[in-house]
């Protein structure tokens, strides 16, 4: 039975009503190792609201997975993503004791193929169930982190709902993409850093970089976060200030040491077993990627037209520099608020990247709920930005469809749509920056609220 109970939620003095489900289906116990710590400062008892939310999220995803199975069997257009077949084939090679890189287009860590072996031994649905679980756990981590920052039960739940009931991650996980593993690892590492558990946090962070490279862009922000207590000698951006910020504190040394060690162990073991193929497919391909086929990136048409030109290298560099500069500036500016630093870093990274597909959006969408309480934006403005962002993608998809499936020469229009989508993304980032209000983050900080 659905009861609508209006919750008054104060987002920086704006009253808003929301609906929430009160029907309880069943109890579901989560044992959360990460929240067991000495001296809990927040009551983290699993309220029935979050339990219900998690169960609801799980049920929705189960339904979508089952629907996907039906569509796969009965329609020419498959619901399951091609990537899932790639994972399953690679896992099959693993079960036979052979390198998963025998499967062409398998571009992930061997750990993923190893984890998905039950796809062959138990059921092809195992992988999807695993991704769904990581997805739901990501939502739980969002809730836990917000509660820990004293965001309040209602707002934390609302933000968790933004992920748990969001159709984009639901569809992506249920189609068999492995993005939810990344969102889980990144959120888990943030949670551990929030609790000042540096060693565990560094291990999980190194694991996340091993699985996909993009969290490497967080390293500057993380380093500076742990030197935020260094005395700021002198004015901003003088050499002395930079030297003070870069001076390794005890936590920094631990962070860098443990991360490097973990990453080297993981990568070294995989290299030893699978050789050059592993390095090539997991890392080098993504770094050097020159995929000239059409995608959301603003640089697509430029790179396609200059692919054979002798200036391709310089142009590639010109496309890389804005990305690099912005990541450094963002890390310098927002390192005291790691969720915001991570979110902005990734948003900028994806927007300015040479290749951009819809899977990349999840990399920063999983961090958006953490950042929301710091934004003073009105709901209507937020919705306008979301609609514009979605519309930008829709406008791009039209000429792309005509190119790929009708063979019409729409390259120029795809380029224009790419520029438009880029500018919409810039506008969204600018609005977020405008409405941002800083509050200190993490344990051991005096909260001045």
């Amino acid at each position, binding site marked *: 039975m659905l009861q609508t109970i209006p919750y008054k939620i104060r987002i920086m003095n704006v009253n808003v009503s929301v609906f929430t489900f009160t029907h309880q289906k069943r109890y579901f116990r989560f044992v959360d190792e990460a929240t067991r710590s000495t001296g809990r400062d927040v009551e983290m008892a699993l309220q029935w609201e979050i339990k219900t939310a998690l169960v609801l999220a799980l049920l929705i995803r189960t339904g979508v997975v089952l629907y996907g199975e039906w569509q796969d069997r009965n329609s020419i257009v498959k619901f399951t993503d091609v990537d899932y077949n790639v994972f399953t084939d690679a896992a099959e090679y693993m079960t036979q004791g052979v390198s998963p890189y025998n499967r062409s287009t398998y571009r992930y860590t061997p750990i993923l193929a190893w984890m998905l072996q039950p796809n062959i031994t138990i059921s092809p649905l195992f992988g999807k169930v695993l991704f769904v679980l990581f997805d739901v756990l990501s939502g739980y981590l969002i809730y836990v982190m917000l509660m820990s920052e004293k965001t309040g039960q209602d707002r934390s739940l609302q933000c968790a709902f933004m992920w748990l009931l969001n159709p984009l991650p639901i569809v992506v996980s249920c189609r068999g993409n492995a993005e939810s593993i990344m969102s889980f690892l990144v959120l888990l590492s943030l949670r551990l850093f929030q609790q000042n558990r540096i060693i565990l946090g560094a291990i999980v962070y190194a694991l996340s970089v091993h699985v996909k490279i993009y969290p490497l862009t967080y390293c500057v922000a993380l380093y500076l976060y742990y030197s935020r207590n260094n005395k700021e000698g002198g004015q901003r951006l003088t050499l002395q200030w930079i030297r003070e910020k870069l001076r390794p504190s005890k936590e920094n040394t631990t962070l860098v040491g443990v991360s490097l060690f973990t990453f080297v162990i993981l990568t070294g073991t995989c290299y030893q077993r699978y050789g050059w193929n592993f390095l090539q497919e997991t890392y080098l391909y993504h770094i050097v990627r020159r995929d000239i086929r059409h995608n959301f990136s603003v640089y697509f048409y430029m790179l396609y037209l200059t692919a054979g030109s002798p200036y391709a290298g310089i142009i590639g560099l010109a496309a890389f520099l804005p990305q690099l500069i912005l990541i450094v500036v963002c890390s310098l500016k927002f390192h005291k608020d790691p969720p915001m630093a991570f979110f902005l870093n990734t948003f900028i990274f994806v927007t300015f990247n040479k290749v951009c597909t819809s899977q990349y959006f999840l990399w920063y969408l999983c961090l958006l709920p953490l950042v929301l309480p710091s934004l003073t934006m009105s709901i209507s403005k937020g919705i306008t930005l979301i609609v514009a962002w979605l519309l930008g993608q829709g406008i791009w998809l039209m000429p792309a469809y005509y190119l790929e499936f*009708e063979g019409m020469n729409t390259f120029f229009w795809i380029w224009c749509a790419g520029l438009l989508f880029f500018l919409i993304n810039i506008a969204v980032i600018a609005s977020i920056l405008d409405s941002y209000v*800083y509050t200190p983050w993490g344990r051991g900080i005096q909260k001045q609220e």
Partner: protein
Amino acid sequence: MEVDLFMLVVLGTAITAAVSSSPNLYRTVRKNGFHRELFTKIFIPTSLIDAKCECLIEEQFPPGLYIDPYELKNYREKGGPQFDSPAVDIEKPKELSPNLVFIIYPQQFTAIGPEYVTNVTVPVHIRYHQPSSRYDTVQIQLKNPRLYLLCQVIDKSIQMNKKQFPCNSVDNNCLWTEIKYKTDVINIEFDVPVGSLHHQGSVISVTLAVTIVCCLYLSSKMLHTHVK
């Protein structure tokens, strides 16, 4: 009277022409864009070959065209044809791809009138081609395939050389016989849209201008955000 005789002769010629004495191949391409379907139909008069014949099509694909072996493997499980394929890199553009040879095994012949008929549909894909300063679209030519039979060929005049290929469902090799055939089509053409090098200058300058300006804009915005 003369008109009737004339009509009789015309009709008679038409009927004999319809039942040709040679194998026939019919090809067409369905769908548009970068993902197409290649439909091949084979007609062989019953007088020329044995009843229990199996046939094989050897396709020579130019670099701009390819078949995705994993897609074909899934398709086979849903009733698609058996096939034999080399490893295919589906992401490379045409300029970095080789010619590829694919073997397709159509389904068993069915006797329709005086001919054995079979057909096969294969999904094919087109690679990205490099941009051109002169044309909006580029053409790919797909040559006619070679047709092989695994059986007793009664009419030796259509027989050509023999070659080893995998037998249909087994990994062993069998000795297949190539046969001649007649067809209306010399080769099939695919149109591929390509980027225009005329745009190159404006695309580079506008893209870089927009991205650099936005980079500076966001940098200054971030530097002016108040963070304690």
